[in-house]
Protein backbone atom coordinates (compact mmCIF):
# COMPACT_ATOMS: atom_id res chain seq x y z
CA UNK A 1 0.00 0.00 0.00
CA UNK A 2 1.24 3.46 -0.83
CA UNK A 3 2.08 5.60 2.13
CA UNK A 4 0.49 9.00 2.08
CA UNK A 5 2.11 10.54 5.06
CA UNK A 6 5.06 12.61 6.05
CA UNK A 7 6.73 11.15 9.07
CA UNK A 8 9.58 12.65 11.00
CA UNK A 9 11.32 11.31 14.03
CA UNK A 10 14.00 13.82 14.89
CA UNK A 11 16.34 14.90 17.60
CA UNK A 12 18.43 18.03 17.61
CA UNK A 13 20.40 19.49 20.48
CA UNK A 14 21.60 23.06 20.65
CA UNK A 15 23.19 24.91 23.53
CA UNK A 16 19.94 26.21 24.98
CA UNK A 17 17.38 24.15 23.16
CA UNK A 18 16.42 20.58 22.42
CA UNK A 19 14.06 19.34 19.76
CA UNK A 20 12.58 15.87 20.17
CA UNK A 21 9.69 15.08 17.90
CA UNK A 22 7.91 12.18 16.36
CA UNK A 23 5.15 13.23 13.98
CA UNK A 24 3.09 11.76 11.22
CA UNK A 25 1.16 14.20 9.10
CA UNK A 26 -1.12 13.68 6.13
CA UNK A 27 0.29 14.67 2.74
CA UNK A 28 -2.76 16.45 1.51
CA UNK A 29 -4.02 19.89 2.35
CA UNK A 30 -2.36 22.28 4.77
CA UNK A 31 -0.63 20.96 7.86
CA UNK A 32 0.13 23.76 10.27
CA UNK A 33 2.99 23.62 12.74
CA UNK A 34 1.82 25.94 15.44
CA UNK A 35 3.53 27.23 18.55
CA UNK A 36 4.88 30.25 20.38
CA UNK A 37 8.24 31.66 19.33
CA UNK A 38 11.02 29.46 20.64
CA UNK A 39 8.83 26.36 20.55
CA UNK A 40 11.00 24.88 17.80
CA UNK A 41 8.52 25.01 14.95
CA UNK A 42 10.88 26.68 12.48
CA UNK A 43 13.67 24.31 13.52
CA UNK A 44 11.37 21.37 12.86
CA UNK A 45 10.60 22.70 9.38
CA UNK A 46 14.30 23.22 8.69
CA UNK A 47 15.05 19.68 9.84
CA UNK A 48 12.44 18.29 7.47
CA UNK A 49 13.93 20.32 4.62
CA UNK A 50 17.43 19.08 5.48
CA UNK A 51 18.72 22.54 6.37
CA UNK A 52 19.79 21.45 9.87
CA UNK A 53 22.84 19.28 9.44
CA UNK A 54 22.98 18.40 13.14
CA UNK A 55 19.56 16.75 13.26
CA UNK A 56 19.55 13.02 13.98
CA UNK A 57 16.72 10.70 13.12
CA UNK A 58 14.56 9.98 10.16
CA UNK A 59 12.37 11.84 7.71
CA UNK A 60 10.14 9.98 5.31
CA UNK A 61 7.92 11.64 2.72
CA UNK A 62 5.45 9.24 1.15
CA UNK A 63 7.68 6.44 -0.15
CA UNK A 64 10.86 8.52 -0.19
CA UNK A 65 13.39 8.30 2.61
CA UNK A 66 14.88 11.79 2.99
CA UNK A 67 16.85 10.99 6.07
CA UNK A 68 17.64 7.89 8.06
CA UNK A 69 20.55 6.58 10.06
CA UNK A 70 22.44 5.78 6.88
CA UNK A 71 21.14 8.31 4.38
CA UNK A 72 20.88 12.06 4.20
CA UNK A 73 19.48 13.36 0.94
CA UNK A 74 20.90 16.87 0.48
CA UNK A 75 18.41 19.72 0.41
CA UNK A 76 18.81 20.36 -3.30
CA UNK A 77 17.80 16.79 -4.12
CA UNK A 78 14.60 16.77 -2.07
CA UNK A 79 11.43 17.50 -4.07
CA UNK A 80 10.36 20.38 -1.88
CA UNK A 81 9.73 24.09 -2.15
CA UNK A 82 10.55 26.44 0.71
CA UNK A 83 9.26 29.90 1.51
CA UNK A 84 11.36 31.65 4.12
CA UNK A 85 10.03 34.00 6.75
CA UNK A 86 11.60 37.13 5.38
CA UNK A 87 12.09 38.04 1.77
CA UNK A 88 14.62 35.66 0.30
CA UNK A 89 14.69 36.70 -3.35
CA UNK A 90 18.08 36.91 -4.99
CA UNK A 91 18.89 40.62 -4.96
CA UNK A 92 20.96 40.46 -8.14
CA UNK A 93 18.10 39.07 -10.22
CA UNK A 94 14.79 40.59 -11.31
CA UNK A 95 11.57 38.99 -10.13
CA UNK A 96 11.34 37.28 -13.50
CA UNK A 97 14.90 35.95 -13.33
CA UNK A 98 14.17 34.72 -9.82
CA UNK A 99 11.31 32.67 -11.23
CA UNK A 100 13.50 31.49 -14.12
CA UNK A 101 16.10 30.34 -11.59
CA UNK A 102 13.56 27.93 -10.16
CA UNK A 103 12.19 26.86 -13.54
CA UNK A 104 15.67 26.07 -14.89
CA UNK A 105 16.40 23.78 -11.97
CA UNK A 106 12.99 22.43 -11.07
CA UNK A 107 11.49 19.10 -11.98
CA UNK A 108 10.57 18.64 -15.65
CA UNK A 109 7.27 17.25 -14.52
CA UNK A 110 5.46 20.58 -14.77
CA UNK A 111 2.48 20.82 -12.47
CA UNK A 112 2.35 24.59 -12.20
CA UNK A 113 3.24 26.64 -15.26
CA UNK A 114 4.87 30.02 -14.94
CA UNK A 115 1.73 31.67 -16.22
CA UNK A 116 -0.37 29.87 -13.59
CA UNK A 117 1.97 30.86 -10.77
CA UNK A 118 2.12 34.46 -11.96
CA UNK A 119 -1.66 34.69 -12.17
CA UNK A 120 -2.27 32.86 -8.92
CA UNK A 121 -0.11 35.33 -7.02
CA UNK A 122 -0.95 38.39 -9.08
CA UNK A 123 2.64 39.34 -9.86
CA UNK A 124 2.37 39.92 -13.62
CA UNK A 125 3.20 43.62 -13.34
CA UNK A 126 6.17 43.10 -11.05
CA UNK A 127 8.29 40.77 -13.12
CA UNK A 128 10.77 43.29 -14.51
CA UNK A 129 11.55 44.79 -11.11
CA UNK A 130 14.44 44.02 -8.81
CA UNK A 131 13.63 42.85 -5.27
CA UNK A 132 14.63 46.22 -3.78
CA UNK A 133 11.92 47.85 -5.90
CA UNK A 134 9.22 45.60 -4.44
CA UNK A 135 7.27 45.97 -1.22
CA UNK A 136 7.55 43.30 1.46
CA UNK A 137 4.25 41.73 0.46
CA UNK A 138 5.14 41.74 -3.22
CA UNK A 139 8.49 40.11 -2.54
CA UNK A 140 6.82 37.40 -0.53
CA UNK A 141 4.36 36.73 -3.35
CA UNK A 142 7.23 36.40 -5.85
CA UNK A 143 9.03 34.10 -3.40
CA UNK A 144 5.93 31.89 -3.13
CA UNK A 145 5.59 31.75 -6.93
CA UNK A 146 9.27 30.88 -7.18
CA UNK A 147 8.87 28.05 -4.67
CA UNK A 148 5.95 26.68 -6.71
CA UNK A 149 7.98 26.71 -9.92
CA UNK A 150 10.52 24.15 -8.77
CA UNK A 151 7.46 21.88 -9.04
CA UNK A 152 7.68 20.68 -5.44
CA UNK A 153 5.87 17.66 -4.12
CA UNK A 154 5.72 19.33 -0.72
CA UNK A 155 5.71 23.05 -0.02
CA UNK A 156 7.25 24.22 3.24
CA UNK A 157 6.33 27.70 4.43
CA UNK A 158 8.04 29.28 7.41
CA UNK A 159 5.81 32.02 8.80
CA UNK A 160 5.49 33.62 5.38
CA UNK A 161 3.36 36.42 6.81
CA UNK A 162 5.18 37.09 10.06
CA UNK A 163 7.44 39.82 8.74
CA UNK A 164 4.54 41.74 7.22
CA UNK A 165 2.21 44.31 8.74
CA UNK A 166 -1.53 43.68 9.03
CA UNK A 167 -2.59 45.17 5.67
CA UNK A 168 0.13 43.18 3.83
CA UNK A 169 -1.00 40.03 5.64
CA UNK A 170 -4.54 40.66 4.55
CA UNK A 171 -3.17 41.11 1.04
CA UNK A 172 -1.45 37.72 0.96
CA UNK A 173 -3.87 35.48 2.88
CA UNK A 174 -6.36 35.28 -0.01
CA UNK A 175 -3.51 34.15 -2.29
CA UNK A 176 -2.66 31.39 0.16
CA UNK A 177 -6.28 30.31 0.26
CA UNK A 178 -6.34 30.24 -3.53
CA UNK A 179 -3.12 28.25 -3.53
CA UNK A 180 -4.70 25.75 -1.20
CA UNK A 181 -7.91 25.37 -3.17
CA UNK A 182 -6.45 25.44 -6.68
CA UNK A 183 -3.35 23.28 -6.37
CA UNK A 184 -3.32 19.80 -4.95
CA UNK A 185 0.01 20.50 -3.31
CA UNK A 186 0.55 19.47 0.30
CA UNK A 187 1.74 22.38 2.41
CA UNK A 188 3.57 22.40 5.73
CA UNK A 189 2.88 25.79 7.22
CA UNK A 190 4.68 27.18 10.27
CA UNK A 191 2.93 29.95 12.15
CA UNK A 192 2.20 31.39 15.56
CA UNK A 193 -0.96 33.18 14.38
CA UNK A 194 -4.27 31.58 15.38
CA UNK A 195 -6.22 33.36 12.64
CA UNK A 196 -3.93 31.91 9.97
CA UNK A 197 -4.41 28.31 11.12
CA UNK A 198 -8.12 28.93 11.60
CA UNK A 199 -8.36 29.91 7.96
CA UNK A 200 -5.84 27.58 6.35
CA UNK A 201 -5.00 24.50 8.36
CA UNK A 202 -6.53 21.08 7.80
CA UNK A 203 -4.21 19.34 10.22
CA UNK A 204 -2.45 20.99 13.14
CA UNK A 205 0.70 20.09 15.05
CA UNK A 206 1.02 22.13 18.22
CA UNK A 207 4.56 22.54 19.55
CA UNK A 208 5.86 23.64 22.90
CA UNK A 209 9.48 23.74 24.06
CA UNK A 210 10.80 21.52 21.31
CA UNK A 211 8.12 18.88 21.73
CA UNK A 212 4.81 18.10 20.12
CA UNK A 213 2.06 19.05 22.55
CA UNK A 214 -0.81 17.76 20.46
CA UNK A 215 -1.72 17.03 16.87
CA UNK A 216 -4.93 16.36 14.98
CA UNK A 217 -7.33 17.72 12.43
CA UNK A 218 -8.17 21.41 12.68
CA UNK A 219 -11.59 20.56 14.11
CA UNK A 220 -10.13 18.23 16.75
CA UNK A 221 -7.44 20.61 17.86
CA UNK A 222 -9.63 23.69 17.98
CA UNK A 223 -12.33 21.91 19.92
CA UNK A 224 -9.89 20.53 22.46
CA UNK A 225 -9.92 22.24 25.81
CA UNK A 226 -6.14 21.95 26.05
CA UNK A 227 -5.72 24.16 22.99
CA UNK A 228 -7.73 26.96 24.52
CA UNK A 229 -4.80 28.36 26.48
CA UNK A 230 -3.15 29.26 23.17
CA UNK A 231 -6.23 31.14 22.15
CA UNK A 232 -7.03 32.97 25.37
CA UNK A 233 -9.99 35.34 25.14
CA UNK A 234 -10.70 34.32 21.58
CA UNK A 235 -10.96 30.58 22.21
CA UNK A 236 -13.03 29.25 19.36
CA UNK A 237 -14.08 26.08 17.60
CA UNK A 238 -13.67 25.59 13.88
CA UNK A 239 -16.16 23.55 11.91
CA UNK A 240 -16.00 22.83 8.20
CA UNK A 241 -19.06 22.49 6.07
CA UNK A 242 -20.85 23.54 2.93
CA UNK A 243 -23.24 26.34 2.13
CA UNK A 244 -26.53 24.59 1.40
CA UNK A 245 -29.09 27.33 1.34
CA UNK A 246 -29.33 31.10 1.02
CA UNK A 247 -32.19 32.97 2.64
CA UNK A 248 -32.44 36.14 0.62
CA UNK A 249 -35.20 37.69 2.66
CA UNK A 250 -33.20 37.76 5.87
CA UNK A 251 -29.71 37.74 4.33
CA UNK A 252 -28.77 34.49 5.96
CA UNK A 253 -27.10 31.38 4.70
CA UNK A 254 -27.22 27.89 6.06
CA UNK A 255 -23.99 25.97 6.50
CA UNK A 256 -24.17 22.23 6.97
CA UNK A 257 -21.38 20.65 8.97
CA UNK A 258 -21.91 16.92 9.47
CA UNK A 259 -25.52 16.86 10.64
CA UNK A 260 -25.42 20.32 12.12
CA UNK A 261 -27.21 23.17 10.34
CA UNK A 262 -25.87 26.59 11.22
CA UNK A 263 -27.39 29.90 10.25
CA UNK A 264 -24.86 32.57 9.44
CA UNK A 265 -24.83 36.02 7.92
CA UNK A 266 -24.89 35.74 4.14
CA UNK A 267 -21.50 36.71 2.71
CA UNK A 268 -22.67 35.98 -0.84
CA UNK A 269 -21.03 32.58 -1.11
CA UNK A 270 -22.59 30.27 -3.66
CA UNK A 271 -24.59 27.26 -2.62
CA UNK A 272 -22.27 24.25 -2.57
CA UNK A 273 -19.19 26.25 -1.57
CA UNK A 274 -16.98 24.62 1.09
CA UNK A 275 -16.50 26.96 4.01
CA UNK A 276 -15.20 27.05 7.53
CA UNK A 277 -17.02 28.60 10.40
CA UNK A 278 -15.61 29.84 13.64
CA UNK A 279 -17.59 29.81 16.85
CA UNK A 280 -16.17 31.77 19.76
CA UNK A 281 -16.41 29.91 23.07
CA UNK A 282 -17.79 32.98 24.78
CA UNK A 283 -20.63 33.14 22.25
CA UNK A 284 -22.03 29.77 23.31
CA UNK A 285 -24.37 29.56 26.30
CA UNK A 286 -25.78 26.43 27.90
CA UNK A 287 -29.16 25.71 29.49
CA UNK A 288 -30.55 22.51 30.92
CA UNK A 289 -34.08 23.02 29.65
CA UNK A 290 -35.23 23.50 26.10
CA UNK A 291 -35.06 27.24 25.51
CA UNK A 292 -38.19 29.20 24.75
CA UNK A 293 -38.34 31.43 21.69
CA UNK A 294 -35.24 33.56 21.66
CA UNK A 295 -33.31 35.89 19.39
CA UNK A 296 -30.68 33.22 19.03
CA UNK A 297 -31.02 31.32 15.76
CA UNK A 298 -28.63 28.49 16.40
CA UNK A 299 -29.83 26.29 19.22
CA UNK A 300 -29.04 22.57 19.59
CA UNK A 301 -29.23 19.76 22.09
CA UNK A 302 -25.82 18.52 23.06
CA UNK A 303 -23.92 16.23 25.40
CA UNK A 304 -21.10 17.44 27.64
CA UNK A 305 -17.84 15.72 26.66
CA UNK A 306 -15.27 17.50 28.83
CA UNK A 307 -15.24 20.05 31.63
CA UNK A 308 -12.22 22.00 32.73
CA UNK A 309 -11.54 25.11 34.75
CA UNK A 310 -10.24 27.96 32.60
CA UNK A 311 -7.11 29.95 33.43
CA UNK A 312 -9.27 32.19 35.58
CA UNK A 313 -11.07 30.07 38.22
CA UNK A 314 -14.24 32.08 37.65
CA UNK A 315 -14.59 30.56 34.20
CA UNK A 316 -15.07 27.00 33.03
CA UNK A 317 -14.45 25.54 29.61
CA UNK A 318 -16.98 22.95 28.52
CA UNK A 319 -16.58 20.84 25.43
CA UNK A 320 -19.91 19.68 24.07
CA UNK A 321 -20.76 17.16 21.43
CA UNK A 322 -23.50 17.91 18.92
CA UNK A 323 -23.85 14.94 16.61
CA UNK A 324 -20.32 14.37 15.36
CA UNK A 325 -19.17 17.94 15.97
CA UNK A 326 -17.40 19.23 19.04
CA UNK A 327 -17.71 22.79 20.23
CA UNK A 328 -15.94 24.48 23.13
CA UNK A 329 -17.94 26.90 25.28
CA UNK A 330 -16.84 29.16 28.04
CA UNK A 331 -19.30 29.72 30.89
CA UNK A 332 -18.93 31.03 34.41
CA UNK A 333 -17.91 28.46 36.99
CA UNK A 334 -20.93 29.49 39.03
CA UNK A 335 -23.28 28.57 36.16
CA UNK A 336 -21.45 25.30 35.67
CA UNK A 337 -22.02 24.55 39.34
CA UNK A 338 -25.66 25.64 39.37
CA UNK A 339 -26.52 23.70 36.23
CA UNK A 340 -24.42 20.80 37.61
CA UNK A 341 -22.61 20.42 34.32
CA UNK A 342 -20.50 17.29 34.17
CA UNK A 343 -19.36 14.82 31.56
CA UNK A 344 -22.41 13.15 30.07
CA UNK A 345 -24.90 15.90 31.01
CA UNK A 346 -27.56 16.67 28.43
CA UNK A 347 -27.68 20.38 27.69
CA UNK A 348 -29.05 22.87 25.20
CA UNK A 349 -26.43 24.99 23.51
CA UNK A 350 -27.29 28.38 22.13
CA UNK A 351 -24.79 29.87 19.72
CA UNK A 352 -25.05 33.61 19.52
CA UNK A 353 -22.84 34.11 16.53
CA UNK A 354 -21.28 31.93 13.84
CA UNK A 355 -18.69 33.54 11.60
CA UNK A 356 -17.76 32.22 8.17
CA UNK A 357 -14.02 32.64 7.91
CA UNK A 358 -13.43 31.25 4.46
Amino acid at each position, binding site marked *: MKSNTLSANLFLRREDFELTIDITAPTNGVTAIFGASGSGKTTLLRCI*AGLEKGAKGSVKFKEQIWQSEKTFIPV*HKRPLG*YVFQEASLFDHLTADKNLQYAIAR*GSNNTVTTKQQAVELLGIGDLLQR*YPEQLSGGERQRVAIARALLVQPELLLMDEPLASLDAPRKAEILPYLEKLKSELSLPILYVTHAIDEIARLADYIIVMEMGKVLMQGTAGEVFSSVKFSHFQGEDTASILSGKVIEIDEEFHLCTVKSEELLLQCRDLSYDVGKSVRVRILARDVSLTTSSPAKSSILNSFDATVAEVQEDKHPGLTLVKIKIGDNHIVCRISSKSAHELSIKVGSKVWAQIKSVAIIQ
Partner: protein
Amino acid sequence: MTLFTSDDVTAIKLTVMLASTVTVILLIISTPVALWLASTHSKWKGFVSALVAMPLVLPPSVLGFYLLIAMGPEGPLGMLTTSLGLPSFAFSFSGLVIASVFYSLPFVVQPIQNAIESLGARPLEVAATLRAGKLDTFFTVILPLSKAGFYTAAVLGFAHTVGEFGVVLMIGGNIPGETQVISVKIYEHVESLNYAQAHTLSLTMVLFSFLTLALLYSIQKPKSKN
Protein backbone atom coordinates in the same frame (compact mmCIF):
# COMPACT_ATOMS: atom_id res chain seq x y z
CA MET B 1 61.89 62.85 -25.21
CA THR B 2 61.97 59.47 -23.60
CA LEU B 3 60.42 59.28 -20.18
CA PHE B 4 61.71 55.83 -19.34
CA THR B 5 64.98 54.15 -20.21
CA SER B 6 64.67 50.81 -22.00
CA ASP B 7 65.66 49.13 -18.73
CA ASP B 8 62.82 50.96 -16.99
CA VAL B 9 60.35 49.78 -19.61
CA THR B 10 61.58 46.22 -19.18
CA ALA B 11 61.10 46.55 -15.41
CA ILE B 12 57.58 47.95 -15.84
CA LYS B 13 56.60 45.17 -18.24
CA LEU B 14 58.05 42.56 -15.91
CA THR B 15 56.21 44.02 -12.93
CA VAL B 16 52.87 44.05 -14.74
CA MET B 17 53.50 40.51 -15.93
CA LEU B 18 54.36 39.33 -12.41
CA ALA B 19 51.42 41.07 -10.78
CA SER B 20 48.94 39.75 -13.37
CA THR B 21 50.19 36.17 -13.07
CA VAL B 22 50.14 36.33 -9.29
CA THR B 23 46.64 37.85 -9.23
CA VAL B 24 45.21 35.12 -11.42
CA ILE B 25 46.86 32.36 -9.39
CA LEU B 26 45.78 33.98 -6.13
CA LEU B 27 42.13 34.30 -7.19
CA ILE B 28 42.12 30.60 -8.03
CA ILE B 29 43.78 29.56 -4.77
CA SER B 30 42.04 32.04 -2.49
CA THR B 31 38.45 31.37 -3.56
CA PRO B 32 38.22 27.85 -2.09
CA VAL B 33 40.22 28.92 0.98
CA ALA B 34 37.91 31.90 1.55
CA LEU B 35 34.81 29.76 0.96
CA TRP B 36 36.04 27.26 3.51
CA LEU B 37 37.00 29.93 6.05
CA ALA B 38 33.66 31.70 5.62
CA SER B 39 31.57 28.62 6.24
CA THR B 40 33.53 26.28 8.47
CA HIS B 41 33.04 25.65 12.16
CA SER B 42 36.18 23.51 12.21
CA LYS B 43 38.64 23.87 15.05
CA TRP B 44 41.30 24.44 12.41
CA LYS B 45 39.74 27.72 11.30
CA GLY B 46 41.82 29.85 13.66
CA PHE B 47 44.98 28.02 12.68
CA VAL B 48 44.41 28.43 8.94
CA SER B 49 43.33 32.07 9.33
CA ALA B 50 46.53 32.84 11.22
CA LEU B 51 48.62 31.10 8.58
CA VAL B 52 46.97 33.10 5.80
CA ALA B 53 47.42 36.37 7.69
CA MET B 54 51.10 35.81 8.57
CA PRO B 55 52.50 37.91 5.68
CA LEU B 56 50.61 40.91 7.10
CA VAL B 57 52.88 41.04 10.12
CA LEU B 58 56.01 39.18 9.08
CA PRO B 59 58.92 41.26 7.72
CA PRO B 60 59.19 40.48 3.99
CA SER B 61 62.84 39.60 4.51
CA VAL B 62 61.85 36.78 6.88
CA LEU B 63 59.39 35.35 4.40
CA GLY B 64 61.91 35.78 1.60
CA PHE B 65 64.64 34.13 3.65
CA TYR B 66 62.65 30.98 4.37
CA LEU B 67 61.39 30.75 0.81
CA LEU B 68 64.96 31.07 -0.41
CA ILE B 69 65.99 28.22 1.84
CA ALA B 70 63.05 26.14 0.62
CA MET B 71 64.09 26.81 -2.97
CA GLY B 72 67.76 26.08 -2.28
CA PRO B 73 69.35 22.72 -3.17
CA GLU B 74 68.61 21.34 0.34
CA GLY B 75 65.05 22.74 0.58
CA PRO B 76 61.87 20.85 -0.34
CA LEU B 77 61.14 23.02 -3.38
CA GLY B 78 64.76 22.85 -4.49
CA MET B 79 64.80 19.05 -4.22
CA LEU B 80 61.55 18.88 -6.14
CA THR B 81 62.88 20.99 -9.04
CA THR B 82 66.15 19.03 -9.10
CA SER B 83 64.37 15.68 -9.17
CA LEU B 84 62.18 16.92 -12.02
CA GLY B 85 65.22 18.15 -13.87
CA LEU B 86 64.03 21.77 -13.72
CA PRO B 87 66.15 24.83 -13.00
CA SER B 88 66.00 26.18 -9.45
CA PHE B 89 63.26 28.66 -8.56
CA ALA B 90 65.72 30.91 -6.78
CA PHE B 91 66.60 34.06 -8.74
CA SER B 92 64.02 33.27 -11.41
CA PHE B 93 60.68 34.73 -12.47
CA SER B 94 58.86 31.54 -11.35
CA GLY B 95 60.47 31.91 -7.94
CA LEU B 96 59.17 35.47 -7.75
CA VAL B 97 55.67 34.29 -8.65
CA ILE B 98 55.72 31.65 -5.89
CA ALA B 99 57.04 34.12 -3.32
CA SER B 100 54.52 36.78 -4.32
CA VAL B 101 51.64 34.33 -4.02
CA PHE B 102 52.55 33.73 -0.38
CA TYR B 103 53.24 37.38 0.24
CA SER B 104 49.95 38.69 -1.19
CA LEU B 105 47.71 35.82 -0.05
CA PRO B 106 45.95 37.64 2.82
CA PHE B 107 45.15 40.61 0.60
CA VAL B 108 43.14 38.35 -1.68
CA VAL B 109 41.69 35.82 0.78
CA GLN B 110 40.36 38.33 3.28
CA PRO B 111 38.19 40.54 1.01
CA ILE B 112 36.64 37.43 -0.57
CA GLN B 113 36.08 35.84 2.82
CA ASN B 114 34.48 39.04 4.19
CA ALA B 115 32.21 39.35 1.18
CA ILE B 116 31.03 35.75 1.47
CA GLU B 117 30.57 36.02 5.24
CA SER B 118 28.45 39.13 4.84
CA LEU B 119 26.11 37.23 2.52
CA GLY B 120 25.15 34.98 5.40
CA ALA B 121 23.80 31.46 5.06
CA ARG B 122 20.37 32.43 3.76
CA PRO B 123 21.10 32.90 0.01
CA LEU B 124 22.86 29.53 0.01
CA GLU B 125 19.93 27.86 1.73
CA VAL B 126 17.54 29.46 -0.73
CA ALA B 127 19.63 28.21 -3.64
CA ALA B 128 19.60 24.69 -2.17
CA THR B 129 15.82 24.73 -1.86
CA LEU B 130 15.71 25.77 -5.53
CA ARG B 131 17.68 22.63 -6.45
CA ALA B 132 21.02 24.33 -7.03
CA GLY B 133 24.03 22.15 -6.21
CA LYS B 134 27.24 23.51 -4.64
CA LEU B 135 29.03 24.54 -7.83
CA ASP B 136 25.85 25.94 -9.35
CA THR B 137 25.26 27.98 -6.18
CA PHE B 138 28.80 29.31 -6.30
CA PHE B 139 28.56 30.60 -9.85
CA THR B 140 24.95 31.80 -9.83
CA VAL B 141 24.58 33.14 -6.30
CA ILE B 142 27.81 33.54 -4.34
CA LEU B 143 29.90 35.01 -7.15
CA PRO B 144 27.41 37.63 -8.39
CA LEU B 145 26.39 38.64 -4.87
CA SER B 146 29.97 39.04 -3.64
CA LYS B 147 31.36 40.52 -6.86
CA ALA B 148 32.65 43.61 -5.08
CA GLY B 149 34.70 41.43 -2.74
CA PHE B 150 36.32 39.65 -5.68
CA TYR B 151 37.14 42.95 -7.43
CA THR B 152 38.63 44.32 -4.25
CA ALA B 153 40.66 41.14 -3.82
CA ALA B 154 41.98 41.30 -7.39
CA VAL B 155 42.92 44.98 -7.16
CA LEU B 156 44.59 44.58 -3.78
CA GLY B 157 46.43 41.44 -4.84
CA PHE B 158 47.73 43.16 -7.98
CA ALA B 159 48.70 46.39 -6.25
CA HIS B 160 50.36 44.66 -3.35
CA THR B 161 52.44 42.52 -5.68
CA VAL B 162 53.50 45.59 -7.65
CA GLY B 163 54.57 47.24 -4.42
CA GLU B 164 56.70 44.42 -2.97
CA PHE B 165 60.38 44.93 -2.51
CA GLY B 166 61.90 42.93 0.31
CA VAL B 167 60.76 39.52 -0.84
CA VAL B 168 61.82 40.23 -4.41
CA LEU B 169 65.28 41.24 -3.34
CA MET B 170 65.69 38.10 -1.22
CA ILE B 171 64.33 35.62 -3.77
CA GLY B 172 64.95 37.22 -7.10
CA GLY B 173 67.86 39.55 -6.75
CA ASN B 174 68.18 42.11 -9.47
CA ILE B 175 68.30 40.47 -12.89
CA PRO B 176 66.97 42.70 -15.69
CA GLY B 177 64.15 41.06 -17.62
CA GLU B 178 63.92 38.18 -15.13
CA THR B 179 63.52 39.53 -11.61
CA GLN B 180 64.19 43.25 -11.83
CA VAL B 181 60.78 44.77 -11.01
CA ILE B 182 60.04 48.50 -10.63
CA SER B 183 60.66 48.74 -6.91
CA VAL B 184 64.07 47.09 -7.29
CA LYS B 185 64.86 49.26 -10.31
CA ILE B 186 64.15 52.41 -8.27
CA TYR B 187 66.50 51.11 -5.60
CA GLU B 188 69.17 50.59 -8.24
CA HIS B 189 68.70 54.11 -9.66
CA VAL B 190 69.13 55.56 -6.20
CA GLU B 191 72.18 53.43 -5.44
CA SER B 192 73.80 54.75 -8.62
CA LEU B 193 72.74 58.33 -7.73
CA ASN B 194 70.51 58.45 -10.80
CA TYR B 195 67.86 60.56 -9.04
CA ALA B 196 66.05 61.82 -12.16
CA GLN B 197 65.16 58.29 -13.28
CA ALA B 198 64.33 57.28 -9.72
CA HIS B 199 61.93 60.22 -9.62
CA THR B 200 60.20 59.27 -12.85
CA LEU B 201 59.63 55.70 -11.76
CA SER B 202 58.67 56.65 -8.20
CA LEU B 203 56.15 59.20 -9.38
CA THR B 204 54.70 56.59 -11.71
CA MET B 205 54.28 54.32 -8.69
CA VAL B 206 52.66 57.11 -6.66
CA LEU B 207 50.17 57.76 -9.44
CA PHE B 208 49.50 54.06 -9.90
CA SER B 209 48.90 53.54 -6.20
CA PHE B 210 46.60 56.51 -5.95
CA LEU B 211 44.54 55.50 -8.96
CA THR B 212 44.34 51.92 -7.72
CA LEU B 213 43.05 52.99 -4.33
CA ALA B 214 40.61 55.45 -5.89
CA LEU B 215 39.29 52.61 -8.04
CA LEU B 216 39.10 50.35 -5.00
CA TYR B 217 37.04 52.76 -2.93
CA SER B 218 34.66 53.37 -5.79
CA ILE B 219 34.10 49.59 -6.06
CA GLN B 220 33.42 49.34 -2.35
CA LYS B 221 30.93 52.18 -2.37
CA PRO B 222 27.50 50.57 -2.30
CA LYS B 223 25.98 50.88 -5.75
CA SER B 224 22.35 50.72 -6.65
CA LYS B 225 21.50 47.83 -8.90
CA ASN B 226 20.74 47.90 -12.62
